[in-house]
């Protein structure tokens, strides 16, 4: 199981992600986007950062990199793909996942710890948790507000494709606990199939025990078959 952590110009959570995955026993490597996916790729992370300076829209430029055709093809064949923060924006911009992540309701960059509730524990990224479990995860983004047409969101909810919702410490989904104005407090969603997923919070920043809480480990354990 070799997980490719794809580096774009301006990625900056790439090395953290490799370190967090290796801590969990996942064989992870940095892959420069121009080099393409290695033949033995068995998983892909689109990491956080500010690829291409967020020009045009966050993730829009990286979504045009030829490696994304390879990532889409790999995803279609069942390879797990996880987009984190800027990687989530890239995932939506490249149609791996539905919707869009756009300007926070506050119009500010927000770097803080939030609570999220596990909405569907039947995915590779959440099977380490119980449905309804509350996790504490960090966010660090200016463009994390999840936007999607109401009817499409309803469809996603019917299909149980919402992974996490922002909530308070008790697990109640409220407007006050919504850090960025995301529709229905959505913090992460899956693609057409559950092995493809994106989320705005950073599980790799709460995986190493030295950093305190380790609530993010379960997400990255999705790469452990």
């Amino acid at each position, binding site marked *: 199981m070799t997980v490719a952590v794809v580096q774009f110009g301006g990625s900056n959570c790439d090395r953290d992600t490799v370190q967090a995955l290796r801590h969990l026993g996942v064989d992870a490597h940095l892959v420069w986007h121009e080099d393409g996916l290695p033949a033995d790729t068995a998983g892909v992370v689109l990491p956080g950062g500010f690829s291409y300076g967020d020009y045009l*829209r966050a993730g829009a430029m990286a979504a045009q990199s030829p490696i994304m055709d390879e990532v889409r093809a790999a995803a279609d064949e069942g390879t797990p793909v996880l987009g984190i923060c800027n990687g989530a924006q890239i995932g939506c911009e490249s149609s791996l996942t539905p919707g869009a992540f756009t300007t926070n309701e506050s*119009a500010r960059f927000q770097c803080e710890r939030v609570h999220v509730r596990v909405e569907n524990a039947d995915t590779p990224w959440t099977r380490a948790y119980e449905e309804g479990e509350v996790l504490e995860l960090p966010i660090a983004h200016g463009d994390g507000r999840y936007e999607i047409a109401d009817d499409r969101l309803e469809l996603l909810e019917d299909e149980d494709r919402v992974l996490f919702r922002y909530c308070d410490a008790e697990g109640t989904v409220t407007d006050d606990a919504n850090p960025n104005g995301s529709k229905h407090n959505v913090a992460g969603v899956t693609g057409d199939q559950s092995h493809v997923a994106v989320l705005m919070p950073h599980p790799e920043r709460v995986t190493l025990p030295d950093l305190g809480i380790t609530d993010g480990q379960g997400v990255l354990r999705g790469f452990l078959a």
Partner: protein
Amino acid sequence: MTAYTATVTVRLKRGVLDPEAETTQRALERLGFELSDLRSADVFEVDLDADDADGAAARAEEMAERLLANPTIHDYDVAVEEA
């Protein structure tokens, strides 16, 4: 082939929150201006050669569909004139 300039205007769909526009509106009000609403939009001016205006517009629309706009949150329009 004729030289054209295609102007692609990309706007947020009606109903999609625009926090930057709201912040800008508040700043204008702080400066003492009276206004009832403010919307922001991105404008791209694309110089290109095409057989006719329709061809130039079609290419600019494809640019909008595939990159300049995000159909999830944006509407766009294209205007073409000879450069």
